[in-house]
């Protein structure tokens, strides 16, 4: 059970939307660029060999002596893909709540997105990149698919590092163009940021949610600590009270740099702190627009 009832209740009114026009097949709620026979008139275009003769607008032919074909628009479903960073650093949790790490927050948010997508009839799936390479559940839009999706999320483990470029080839097959990609990552790994940028360049609508623990935001440590970076395999004896202000300044600068980098690539970027409710960040991204 990934979603608590009160969290599920707060998801009402949220709507997944993409700036791109989806290309998927089937009937959906999103304006699509797939044209053809339909109800709503889109445009006239010149006749090309292969078009059905019955699609030619004969009245217009009578007026203009040219062959034009009527095009209609169709609403298509969205393809929502949650991209989860499952590297070892995602196991980071707050001292106050050691059982709830970044990966747990990512699971919850992913499950929320899956729930919203299922309600809209959109296709959803997730892809995880981490020590196991590229794993995940391909897109689908049925109720059974949601269970498969949630089971796959439960099986995720935060370990290893994000594979290099060659190891991510599978990613491009899993995330088709014009997909809505929600990246759940701590943003500490440059490889993941690069992947997001490349996805944004190749016709995917990428949204980045950076997961930050409250300890990283506030640095509430005092006295000497033996800090350990599991992913890098580095440990360092640090006087916490002495480095607090310096760390907070440097970390804020790093977050700002990342936000600018994403903005430059046209990626919507929000930060999510682990002591906040996942509904808050989802409302920021997919809530009704305030004018």
């Amino acid at each position, binding site marked *: 059970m990934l979603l608590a009832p009160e969290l599920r209740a707060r998801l009402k009114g949220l709507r997944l939307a993409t700036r791109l026009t989806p290309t998927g097949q089937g009937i959906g709620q999103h304006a699509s660029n797939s044209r053809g026979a339909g109800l709503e008139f889109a445009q006239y275009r010149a006749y090309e060999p292969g078009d059905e003769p019955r699609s030619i607008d004969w009245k217009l032919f009578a007026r203009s002596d040219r062959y034009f074909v009527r095009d209609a628009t169709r609403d298509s479903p969205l393809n929502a893909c949650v991209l989860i960073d499952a590297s070892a650093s995602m196991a980071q949790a707050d001292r106050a709540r050691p059982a709830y790490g970044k990966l747990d927050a990512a699971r919850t948010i992913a499950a929320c997105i899956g729930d919203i997508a299922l309600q809209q009839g959109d296709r959803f799936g997730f892809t995880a990149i981490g020590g196991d390479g590229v794993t995940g559940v391909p897109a689908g839009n049925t109720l059974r698919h949601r269970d498969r999706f949630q089971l796959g999320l439960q099986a995720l483990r935060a370990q290893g590092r994000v594979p290099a470029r060659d190891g991510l080839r599978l990613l491009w097959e899993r995330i088709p163009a014009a997909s809505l990609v929600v990246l759940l990552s701590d943003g500490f790994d440059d490889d993941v940021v690069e992947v997001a940028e490349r996805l944004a360049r190749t016709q995917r609508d990428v949204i980045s949610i950076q997961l930050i623990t409250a300890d*990283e935001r506030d640095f509430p440590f005092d006295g000497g600590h*033996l800090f*350990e*970076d*599991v992913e890098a395999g580095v440990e360092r*004896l640090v006087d916490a009270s002495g480095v607090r202000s310096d760390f907070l300044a*440097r970390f804020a600068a790093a977050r700002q740099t990342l936000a600018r980098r994403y903005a430059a690539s046209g990626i919507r970027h929000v930060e999510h702190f682990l002591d906040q409710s996942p509904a808050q960040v989802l409302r920021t991204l997919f809530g009704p627009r305030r004018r």
Partner: protein
Amino acid sequence: MIDLLAPVALTALAALAIPLLIHLIRRSERQRTPFAALRWVADRTRPRQRLHLHDRLLLMLRLLLLAVLALLLAQPVWRELGADDAKVIAVLPSVSAAAARAAVDAPTADWRWLAAGFPALATDEPVEPSSDAGIGLLRQLDAELPPKIALTVVVPAELSGLDAERLRLDREVDWKIVAGAASAPAGDSPTRTALTIAVRHGADATDALKVVRALAQAWQTADASLSGRLSLDVADADAAVPAEAAVLIWLVPGISPTLDAWLAGGGTAFVSPSELGGDPVWLDEQSGEPVLRERLIGTGRAVSLVTPLRPDKTPALRDPMFPKALARLLLPMPTAPDRAPAAAVAPVRRDQPAPAPATPLDAGLALAAAVLLLAERLRATRRRRVLA
């Protein structure tokens, strides 16, 4: 003044280092804290090397607890020194209160009788003037008084009840001798009084009486103090025993009311021949058989010989040690001289003064240690505040 009976135990204070070390060790540095954002933590700031003590209240409690325990091991006592100008005047009961007050001019001082319990000299003659224990009590008074208090003792010209030990006290004593008063009524020394031995015999006791006379002769020869004052009162068994007789020698076989009455009155008797029995007190050197037996009857004492007092019936009589052994069992011991002029027995000061009377402080310290231990446990096992 607080004094320590075992100051060496203060080395236990070295244990204070243990809680200090415990609190100096930074336990947070022993635990690894996973922190993925480590790359933004500055590298140069090593933990500062200054001493850092965490939870100072708990440390204080632990240090106090150990200090109190170490102090408890050192056995602290409270010694009363007394005020500098305080003065106690002890009066021997044989001196009248009026005479004593006339001898010493110190109306504000603490006047005490030198008697059991040291009663105050409020009334004229509150205690029985029995001086026997008086001088011995001076040692007790000296030991119980705080060392700074001056002591004046008012004594008569002649003291009795002295013992063989010179009076050695912890302080200088003002030794006031009041002329005229005597410690005890003058009497003859016990070494001068006559010693009567009553001998009661049955029929045909010629041999036994010979032995008795020989014994008396031997005793007087052996002990010069006996010569001249030892007298034998020889009579038949029917004759009454004089009350002043020191020993009764009973040479009649069988049980007799006269002997029973003598023993019941607390007298000492030598009975021969006798079936009284008792513990063997003298053995025959050759055979090892018990010859003399001693038995306590009421307050009296009977030394008995099973055989008649005749050399042919009792070979042990020929033993040269027999008179001495019998004298030791029968004759009263000479008492030591216990009287002296007061001026000759003035107390001297002891070379190494005994410590002042002390009150142990263990109970209070033990209670404090228990309270501290409780507080320490409460503090150490309290629920840690959850870091928000």
